[in-house]
């Protein structure tokens, strides 16, 4: 049996059950060591497969969070993200990880009261913006002025909330 990483003889055979599905992986001694397969407690095949499929070792992935400076390789190494913006930046590499980690990929739990109004606010702003766009295209300047005032009012209210 050949190693999953290189063509050497595989001597380490891993089996793990994730969400009722059996995953198998065969590694040679040195690849197993390189992957940190020394403590079976902290081992996840999900992570190993993830590592196996992306950028070759040594080359740093260009993905970096501009907001906090966390790099892709830091995330891969430590498994921790640095800030909320990281969740957008690393979403492409995060999604497959989440599949193996959790029961689903959509939050079905508690919604904080503050976010409820924030979500509503963002929805009404984008709604008004598209109405404004429509009114301008139809050269309906009376409506456009009215919508623009509504937008201004809503945005200044939000500004006051943030500052207050």
């Amino acid at each position, binding site marked *: 049996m050949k190693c999953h990483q290189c063509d050497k003889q595989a001597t380490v055979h891993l089996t793990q059950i994730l*969400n009722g599905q059996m995953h198998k992986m065969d590694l040679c001694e040195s690849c197993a060591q390189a992957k940190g397969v020394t403590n079976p407690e902290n081992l996840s095949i999900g992570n190993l497969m993830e590592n196996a499929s992306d950028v070759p070792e040594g080359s740093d992935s260009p993905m970096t969070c501009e907001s906090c400076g966390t790099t892709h390789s830091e995330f891969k190494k430590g498994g921790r*993200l*640095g800030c909320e913006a990281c969740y957008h930046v690393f979403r492409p590499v995060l999604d497959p990880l989440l599949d193996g980690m959790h029961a*689903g990929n959509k*939050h079905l739990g*508690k*919604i904080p009261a503050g976010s409820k109004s924030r979500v509503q606010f963002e929805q009404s702003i984008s709604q008004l913006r598209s109405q404004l766009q429509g009114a301008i295209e139809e050269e309906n300047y009376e409506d456009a002025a009215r919508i623009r005032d509504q937008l201004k009012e809503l945005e200044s209210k939000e500004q006051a909330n943030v500052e207050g």
Partner: protein
Amino acid sequence: MFNDILNDDFSSAKGPKAIPVTLSTRIRLARNLREFPFPGRAETSQRRAVLTKCMEAMHDIKDLDSSYAVEVDDLSELERQILVEKHLISRELSDMDEASGIILSKDRNCCIMINEEDHLRIQVLQPGLNFSKVWKRVDALDSNIESEVSYAYDGDLGFLTACPTNLGTGMRASVMMHLPGLVMSKNMDKVVNAVNQLGFAVRGLFGEGSDASGSIFQISNQQTLGESESAIIERLDKTLQNLVRQEEFARKKLLQDDGRRLIDKISRAIGSLKSCHLIQSAEAMDLLSLIRLAADFKMLPDSYRSTADRMFIEIQPGHVQLAAGKPVEPDDRDYLRASLLRQKFAKAPFIKTDG
């Protein structure tokens, strides 16, 4: 003030009587504030701003009236260790050196860690198996805090946490269970496998990496995204109730199939506790586990169950040093631990059998 907390034996006395099998129920919620990097990535000044913001937010919350608030670096090494042994704070928080804090409610059942892996770890615990009561309290507390601060939250991914394993609900629901029947009948491996497959983790008394001395296990949900809090709790609760039945069955079977050996073990445990002069904590935990089992079997008076539960904590290295009033070397600790146990079990009756 702090000495009261350290000496307070929160695990029994005032609380409801210890309940067989399930020692305690706990739920913790991981939360982060918007617009600040997570603690692991934040500058000290940012961590300090988060600490101040959070401390202020807690100020007017009724459930935290007369609570105790302290910064981690104001505590001595020993004081931190004691809070860890009482399961009030994590080892990770106890290792933090700047701008991390603890808020502990008056009844000691609610503890908020600030700037651990996430900005906030809000946790509530309660003796016995009682998820609905614990969830109600932690949920209300979380909502109250959220009315004062803005949480990092995404409509798809839920509450955003430093580690993606906590993403979504940010909730870890767990219990401490005493499972000597399953351990002695050598069924624990099977149980751990079955429980793992349901997405739940099984660990020792002191969490990750700790051994299962005293046959005490911590069982908790692993998955936090894709299921609501109530769905997770309901599934865990069902699994745990099943586990309690398995444990009861294993105990009955042990008594039926090999009762003499079981009584021999328990009687020797009583003898050792009455007469030891040097004892390490792992051995003491195993003896105490047998005392707790004997009380469940009504071989010893009920009061010995709460004594055992209290001793599980008081024989830990930090607590032994606290009782001594000074740092103590391991060998001397074993001596002090033994004299504490000798004194507590001096009057314990030996088990009489008809045979």
